[in-house]
């Protein structure tokens, strides 16, 4: 354990000695008693400073010593460093990798190492706590952001922090923010070599739309044609999905379940983003249809709330959209709407198909602006110690008042 403000320990020691000295040299104030013949006593000092062999009011002294000690420790701010290890490896594990590849990457880690598994979200954990699940899309920026936030705590208690990344670096996983976030990490990053077997291009199937005749999404889908349909696509604008939809998805089709909810007439313009494609239109949020469980968000409103999710069904894919469209207007027929729907449907395609080499800026450590300050985070117990000291001080004051009364 180390201290952020070791000078406070010296000051506290002086304070403790001062309290003990005050109780040894305390100016005695004898109790007053009524004595009718007091006039016959000789006049003299009513208070006397005497040195006692044993401190007076020992319980009060102990309470005051405790207050000073707690205050001292709180101001000194102890840093709990724990057991130090020579090297700690932090693996950034891309969730779009096949499960076997993920397990192989995890096997390289030892006890005490850490893993940041990422798809569109990043989660920090121990290697033994990771259950490899294959995701369709991943964001390297999410992993780097999580690393930046946790880097200091990960570096604490170790002499060297080694960072590795296992990822196919698919086209959609790297964005402009990735390089910026990488510059915030002062360490070099080791690229774990992986073998990615690209999926063969699947045969395209038919596009099936279950909707009313004048449904705007159906019209947009017709405009898109079969160009976006991989293994066939079903767009369901009904309140529920049918068994045929599930069977088709199980056989490899993409089922888009977009319940036909109408937006309010006064619905303001909203922006929906999926895979870098944004559609701005008077779209509302569908708060009627329940959200899917255990599905991965793929589209978001401007405030970060998810608007669409993707999940696997058999060898196929299911996309849930919770957005209500205006009853009138041709917003859905616009080019931006078509591009958005196309990007939405392509969310079922796995990014690993677009694997590429790691970017050059990722591996090398950025030029240091100055000395990298080694992580030293206060354990947080300091403020509780100070709070305890203040509480005891208030208690001591109250007890003294009660005693006087």
């Amino acid at each position, binding site marked *: 354990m180390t201290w952020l403000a070791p000078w406070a320990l010296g000051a506290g020691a002086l304070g403790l000695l001062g309290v003990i000295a005050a109780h040894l040299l305390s100016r005695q104030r004898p109790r007053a008693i009524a004595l009718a013949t007091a006039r016959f*006593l000789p006049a003299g*000092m009513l208070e006397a400073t005497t040195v006692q062999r044993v401190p007076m009011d020992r319980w009060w002294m102990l309470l005051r010593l405790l207050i000073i000690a707690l205050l001292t420790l709180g101001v000194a701010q102890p840093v709990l460093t724990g057991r130090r290890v020579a090297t700690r490896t932090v693996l950034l594990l891309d969730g779009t990798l096949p499960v076997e590849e993920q397990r192989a990457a995890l096997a390289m880690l030892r006890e005490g190492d850490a893993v940041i598994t990422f798809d569109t979200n990043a989660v920090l954990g121990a290697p033994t706590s990771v259950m490899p699940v294959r995701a369709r899309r991943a964001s390297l920026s999410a992993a780097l952001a999580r690393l930046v936030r946790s880097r200091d705590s990960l570096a604490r208690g170790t002499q060297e922090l080694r960072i590795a990344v296992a990822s196919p670096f698919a086209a959609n996983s790297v964005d402009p923010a990735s390089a910026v976030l990488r510059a915030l990490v002062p360490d070099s990053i080791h690229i774990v070599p992986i073998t990615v077997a690209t999926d063969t291009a699947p045969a395209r199937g038919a596009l099936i739309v279950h909707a009313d005749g004048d449904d705007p999404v159906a019209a947009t889908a017709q405009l898109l044609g079969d160009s976006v349909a991989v293994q066939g696509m079903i767009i369901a604008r009904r309140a529920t999905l049918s068994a045929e939809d599930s069977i088709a998805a199980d056989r490899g089709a993409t089922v888009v379940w977009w319940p036909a909810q109408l937006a309010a007439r006064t619905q303001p313009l909203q922006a929906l983003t999926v895979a870098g494609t944004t559609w701005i239109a008077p779209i509302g949020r569908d708060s009627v249809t329940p959200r899917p469980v255990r599905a991965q968000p793929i589209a978001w409103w401007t405030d970060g709330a998810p608007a669409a999710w993707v999940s696997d069904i058999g060898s196929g894919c299911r996309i849930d959209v919770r957005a209500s469209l205006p009853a009138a207007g041709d917003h859905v027929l616009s080019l931006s709407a078509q591009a958005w729907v196309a990007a939405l449907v392509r969310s079922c395609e796995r990014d690993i198909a677009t694997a590429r080499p790691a970017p050059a800026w990722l591996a090398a450590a950025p030029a240091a602006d100055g000395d990298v300050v080694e992580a030293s985070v206060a354990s947080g117990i300091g403020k509780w110690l100070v709070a305890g000291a203040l509480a005891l001080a208030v208690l001591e004051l109250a007890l003294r008042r009660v005693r006087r009364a």
Partner: protein
Amino acid sequence: MATLGQHDYGALLDALRGVRWMARLRPRTTNVGAHTAKRIGPNVEVTEYRPYRQGDDPRRLDWKLLARTDRAYVRLAPDVATSPTLILLDGSASMGAGLGGDTKWRQARMLCVGLAAVGRGAGDPVGLVIALASGARRLAPRARGDVVREMIRVVDAVLVDGSPDVAPLLEGMRGVERVVIISDLLGDADAMLVRGASLVARGVEVIVVQLVARAELSLALERAVAVDPENETLRRPLARSAHRSYDVAFAAFRSTMRNHWLATGARYVEIVDDQPPADAVRKLVRVATGTGPVA
């Protein structure tokens, strides 16, 4: 303040049954009582004859002697009279507060009731004056049978406090033959001495009872500040080193009070608060009647 129960007073009155408190000076009153009066009156027991003089009461003439010898003589005999007694209690705070609590005030109440009972037993009118900060509480001398009970009720209802002047209450005591002052003499002692001397000069029998607490006689405390209950600004350190000089000063004060009061012709008694009240009353009566030591 400790409450004295009827049992305490009853035990005291039982213990004092038969005690006679005869007047040391012949009373000048005309009411027939138990004390030999100062005047010569028409008593049954004739002690002398003298010739009738103008102004004598014709009823005192010895008519049989006049008839036999044709000489006008009057019968003379020592008269008996009552001795109206007034008990003056000091109700200052110093009587009710001290190291031992209100033991001085408790003893003062017992002495007051005991003396009243003894005086009432001799048929003397007994009265009471209590000097209080809120004003004097008075009971005029009376010889009624319930005067002792009335006195108990009054002294039990009083709360001592402040620093009242006792000396002014010694003024204008007409018809009173005996005055008993019960006080610790820590208040206006000098003024009391002057008024007491004046009373003695008028022929009033004055008995001064100085009450002292046992705790005041032998200080046992250390490391304390002694505060005068009648003067909060008077604070003195009560250290062991001060005990010696305190004892000397307090003894000198008591000795001075005793000598000064005796010099006026009054009787002086020092009573300690832990003394049994019946014994204290007997001692006081002996001193007052002149059958015991003056102090």
